[in-house]
């Protein structure tokens, strides 16, 4: 028994701590970030459990009731067609969070890989790849999305992917700039002289070093994607009634904000709380993941 214990102790000490473990350790110390993470998890759980949590059906109308302020039956009130706002907010949250995360993940994946490759190899490859980005930048997003919708039809998943496919451009530029400065530095030269493969250098040494700005930008992308979705839906290109999303609920809420303020306030609150949580978490993650911060 005693030998076992010592063995275990030794392994513990020798294991060293990985980048992620360190990061988690540092993140936990940042109260705002932990709070943000907690709120986000809560939102995600609520979105996942919506069908069981929602008190009513999201399309069930009660025209007789109409727009009613918050009450015991309808905690957040009802909209002008007498539909329960809490239910619609929960269902809308599913779509908003999904579009936010999926589209951003797509943008992140394409943008980071693309930017790193362009920045690392430089020269002609870089020139060609970045000119392609410039061309795509010049394409109006709306027309691109409308084209996609016309070709593939209206489909929520496609909408997510399409938004992601237009949001990666800035990400690619940011990452490329970062990688260009990083690859001049000694640690990359050291890695090259150690004979590491290019893929290992990119994935182990360059990408982790770009995470700071990438995460900050990601936390900004998620809200802009959510709003973009609302905009598309409003034009009839995104999700269609009776389904809803936070962005749509807000844009409808604005129309009647003087008569029925709760229709604007609650969706607005839901969106802003999520965005704040994301911002705090992003801030915390940036600090935590920065490999340049010393290990405590």
């Amino acid at each position, binding site marked *: 028994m005693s030998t076992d214990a010592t063995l275990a102790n030794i392994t513990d000490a020798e294991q060293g701590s990985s980048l992620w473990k360190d990061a988690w350790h540092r993140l936990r110390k*940042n109260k*705002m970030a932990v709070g943000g993470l907690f709120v986000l998890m809560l939102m995600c759980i609520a979105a996942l459990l919506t069908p069981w949590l929602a008190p009513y059906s999201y*399309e*069930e*109308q009660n*025209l*007789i009731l*109409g*727009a009613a302020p918050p009450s015991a039956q309808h905690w957040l009130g009802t909209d*002008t*067609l*007498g539909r329960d706002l809490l239910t619609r907010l929960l269902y809308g949250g599913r779509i908003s969070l999904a579009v936010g995360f999926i589209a951003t993940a797509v943008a992140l994946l394409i943008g980071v890989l693309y930017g790193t490759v362009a920045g690392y190899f430089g020269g002609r490859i870089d020139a060609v790849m970045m000119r392609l980005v410039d061309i795509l930048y010049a394409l109006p997003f709306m027309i691109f999305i409308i084209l996609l919708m016309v070709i593939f039809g209206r489909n929520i998943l496609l909408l997510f992917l399409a938004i992601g496919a237009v949001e990666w451009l800035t990400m690619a530029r940011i990452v490329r700039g970062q990688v260009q400065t990083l690859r001049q530095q000694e640690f990359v030269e050291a890695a090259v002289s150690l004979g590491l493969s290019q893929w290992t250098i990119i994935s182990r040494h360059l990408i982790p070093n770009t995470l700071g700005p990438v995460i900050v930008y990601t936390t900004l992308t998620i809200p802009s994607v959510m709003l973009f979705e609302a905009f598309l839906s409003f*034009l*009839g290109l995104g999700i*269609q*009634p*009776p389904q809803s999303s936070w962005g749509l609920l807000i844009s*409808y809420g*604005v*129309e*009647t*904000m*003087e*008569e*029925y303020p709760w229709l604007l306030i609650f969706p607005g609150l839901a969106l*802003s709380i999520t965005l*704040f949580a994301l*911002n*705090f978490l992003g*801030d*915390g993650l940036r*600090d935590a993941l920065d490999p*340049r*911060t*010393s290990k405590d």
Partner: protein
Amino acid sequence: MQLVIKRTRRKQRTPVRSDRRRGLKLTSVLLCYLLSLLGLTACGDNENNVVSGNRQQILHWGNGTEPQELDPHIVTGVPEHHIITALLEGLVLKDPQTLEPIPGVAERWVISDDGLVYTFHLRDNARWSNGDPVTAEDFVWSWWRALQPALGNQYAYMYYAIKNAEAYAQGKIKDFDQVGAVALDERTLQVTLANPTPYFLQLLDHYSMFPVHRPTIEKFGEPAERGTRWTRAGNFVGNGAFVLKLWSLNKVVIVEKNSGYWDSDNVKLNSIYFYPTENVSTEERMFRAGQLHVTGSIPADKIAVYKKERPEDLRIAPYLGTYFYRFNTTVPHLSDPRVRRALAMTINRKQIVERVTKGGQLPAYTYTPPDTLGYTARDGFSFDPEAARALLAEAGYPDGDGFPQTEILYNTSEGHRKLAVAIQQMWKKNLNIDVILNNQDWKVYLDNVDNGHYQIARAGWIGDYVDPNTFLDMWVSNGGNNRTGWANSDYDTLVLKQSPTAPSRDARYQAFKEAEATLLAEMPILPIYFYTRNNLVRPSVKGMPANLLDYTLYKNIYLQAALPEQVE
């Protein structure tokens, strides 16, 4: 080295503080945004459109949407109507109070005793805006143009009261000289009708019978060519009280007083600005902020607020119009009248007018509004979900099983959307069928409906004149405004043959009643409610009485602010 420098810099600003600063900034941005929404004019200068407009006699008009075109022989919409009636003038005008015909380009007219021959004497001083005189030949040529099949004039049937016009429009006769419109001399126009038509003078004041300037049209293309540049500002030559000054797409259409107009001494307004106000909430805010004198409509939820707080701005008037949905009867599952009736019978119209539209509209169980010049049709159906389910089962979709996906098309507007969502849910609840909604810009929507690229499409019809005929003659087979693919020969006979030749008004209305019963039994359309005209009008707008057709005679309007206009 680098690492150290970075670390010291990091220490200078602690993360918590930066968070707080960002939070504060965000909050203040949000606050400013909200305040600016609420305050609206708080930051602008004192003189808004209404005040300056009142001083300079410039009317600011919320026109609902961007006009599709300004060619009177192509358009079909109300927004276009508002602009075209300012730019062009027909043989007669209407008194905005009584809707009786009053002299327009024709200073007087003689009707033969049998009611078949109308002789119009055109006034000497009627001029086009480029100085050319308006002649009887101009009318004959314009009407010839309007009947060219290549032009695709959906209002061609408005001419069918004229002798041989129908045969000409359908290509049965090739010679326009046989059509009953003849210029006897430069100032005399003789029109011969197929049958005595009591509402013929009213037709003449509809834009589809307005004259157009021949040299201008020929300068920019073929007479029967659609979409040429003759309707652009600078090219447009009209004979109305106003001339087209500027047409800035999706921004504004500006018309200015036409000094060459025969009655220009009595035109008080200097210009009119027509704004494409598609979003009714935005329009209402523009009105409140003093950007508009007149709005196209008012958000349903605002009616109660205005009734209480600013009743002098609110105008609720009867309106000769029906809000309905068109079925595309060429779509397989909608070609079955049982399906169409089932869909019609499961909409609770009473709830819709009381809870959704909220503007005093009436539930519609017929197509022609009740008491249109003494004509009231029998209800064609009722709200009866039980019977509707049976009908749908009979048609092969018991409990909505296997009902193909169906789409409701509407032009982008908050009001249409709300109604469509309500109906979507009623069908879901009562018939267990799923429909999807699709909204499109006005021009795209019109194109798609014209070309039959829809399944169910929202529509509204405002009477062009006060007579049941304006509602019923549009559903004849291949009628330009039919657009449902529905054709019924009994209906055609009743509307086109029996009613025009009916010996008495009772007999005529009897034919209409039978026709409408056929229409409602087959249901190519689904009536929802009868309109009321709800909009906002500044008290300073004078000379614009409310009437059944929402007919505006711009030359009578003037702006006079009794007191400085109250603006929030």
